[in-house]
């Protein structure tokens, strides 16, 4: 993980994360960016369930291009508030979107066009405040957003970068296609036999993937279908501790700076009961050809 972040997420990068909305959030990758004290990042995402709040609080972020930043089960993002309201720990630029419009912004970049038209956002003040949105011919034109890198957490991947993800996908496909490069983090690193047995389930072309990181539990406290339940209590504790800048600093020490890697992090959590044990496998699809 450390090598992938060091090499592919330099200071100033535009980074898409949390693209599956509440599930599959690449917390381990985000925490590594904090540990490496990345600066001046632009974060791109739909909703961000606490991860963006943490990176903002840690001073890594210059701009947020997103539809929603907070803590889904607990409400407001306290670090986001401090940054926007008081410039703590630094001033933050916000380019507001809706979930639909951030998807369109990424599809525009994926299709290599300057913008895509839509009817959403008509009548919303978001149109006035985000310079990448404009009105013309009775439609809203959503300017392309091209991330330098998308970080995607999935259930399983092979070493060639073929990533299998299942469950709702949010805006993961357009984020990966729009990005110059993709970092995949995965619960399981598997042989190509497994990924190639179901090419429909491969999320993105392997030609976009620059790194595959085997990082079990790398999405905690967010859920991973078939692997981990959502750790609601962890989100609640984070909301409480991040109420003050000092409380957030203590949280960051305990959960990011004092843990050298994900295994140590997980040993500090109550993640064992969160592991999903009741499996529900899909029926295999027959790819036979002769």
């Amino acid at each position, binding site marked *: 993980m450390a090598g992938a972040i060091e090499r592919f997420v330099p200071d100033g990068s535009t980074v898409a994360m949390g693209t*599956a*909305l*509440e*599930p599959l959030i690449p917390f381990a990758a985000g925490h590594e960016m904090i540990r490496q004290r990345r600066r001046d990042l632009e974060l791109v995402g*739909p*909703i961000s*369930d606490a991860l963006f709040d943490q990176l903002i609080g840690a001073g890594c972020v210059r701009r947020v291009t*997103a*539809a*929603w*930043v*907070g803590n*889904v*089960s607990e*409400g*407001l*993002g306290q670090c*986001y*508030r401090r*940054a*926007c*309201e008081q410039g703590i720990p630094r001033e933050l630029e*916000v380019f*507001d*979107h*809706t*979930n*639909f*419009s951030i*998807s*369109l912004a990424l599809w525009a970049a994926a299709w290599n066009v300057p913008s895509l038209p*839509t*009817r*959403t*956002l*008509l*009548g*919303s*003040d*978001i149109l006035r405040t985000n310079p990448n949105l404009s009105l013309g011919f*009775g*439609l809203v034109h959503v300017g392309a957003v091209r991330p330098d890198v998308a970080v995607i957490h999935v259930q399983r991947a092979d070493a060639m970068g073929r990533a299998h993800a*299942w*469950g*709702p*996908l*949010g*805006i*993961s*496909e*357009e984020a990966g296609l729009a990005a110059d490069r993709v970092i995949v983090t995965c619960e399981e690193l598997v042989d190509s036999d497994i990924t190639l047995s179901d090419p429909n389930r491969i999320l993105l072309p392997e030609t976009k993937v620059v790194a595959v990181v085997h990082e079990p539990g790398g999405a905690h406290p*967010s*859920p991973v*279908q078939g692997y981990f*339940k*959502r750790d*609601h209590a962890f*989100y609640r504790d984070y909301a409480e501790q991040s109420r003050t800048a000092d409380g957030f600093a203590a949280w960051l020490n305990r959960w990011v700076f004092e843990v050298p890697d994900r295994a140590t992090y997980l040993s500090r959590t109550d993640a064992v009961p969160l592991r*999903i044990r009741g499996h*529900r496998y899909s029926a295999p699809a027959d790819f036979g050809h002769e």
Partner: protein
Amino acid sequence: MSEAYTPQELMVAVASREIRDGDLVFVGMRLPILAYAVALTTHAPNARGLFEVGLMRDRPAGAFLGTMGDPPNVAGAVWATRMSNAMALMAQGHVDLGFIGGAEVDRFGNLNTSYVGDHAKPKVKLPGSGGGADIAILSRRWVTSMSHEKRRLVDRVSFVTSPGHGDGSRGWRERNGLLGGGPVAIITTLCVFRFPEGGGEAYLDSVHPGHTVADVRAETGWDVKEASNVGMTAPPTESELDEIRRRSEELT
């Protein structure tokens, strides 16, 4: 009887009654997740739920949900897909009803979930639209719910994240190209407001048991219009309450 249920339970029951049998419902977070489950098990067994994360369901999830993306909401879904596909259905007018949470709502049903105060130097930075503005603009009709406080029910919101009936003039939405019919109800901890067909200003339709019109007026930031016959909100039925409690028991 006033002690027999909480204000939140009443709000969930009222919200569930907005769902008609056969509706495709764009379900949001928390209260609507419960309201959708209650509707399915009571009066609207054929309603389908659409979740912006990229899911469609035809029955409630098998276990408690903290978010729409929790694993029990995925197991047994009738469609797991990408978000833009869910948005496509809504853009085509296939979503009958949406739910939107709000921090502030005004007399014309416009919602602010972005900035309290000047957006360049906000007093409070709220999380943002999420899918709220999309639902407000594209679903056929929608409902919002919030705690009834003077600071939340304001005369005009300072920032319109999710447009309702705009400036309140008739036909405002149509003139501005918004597709759906806009807000039909504001459900609060004290009462239910509704809107005239074709847009306009919210009017007080019913007051929850144990509260009065005067209570509503005291806690609302505009001069409240009343329906010709302000009723009492029907309390939750036993089956509504059973379902709500069964689904929220893990909530602490």
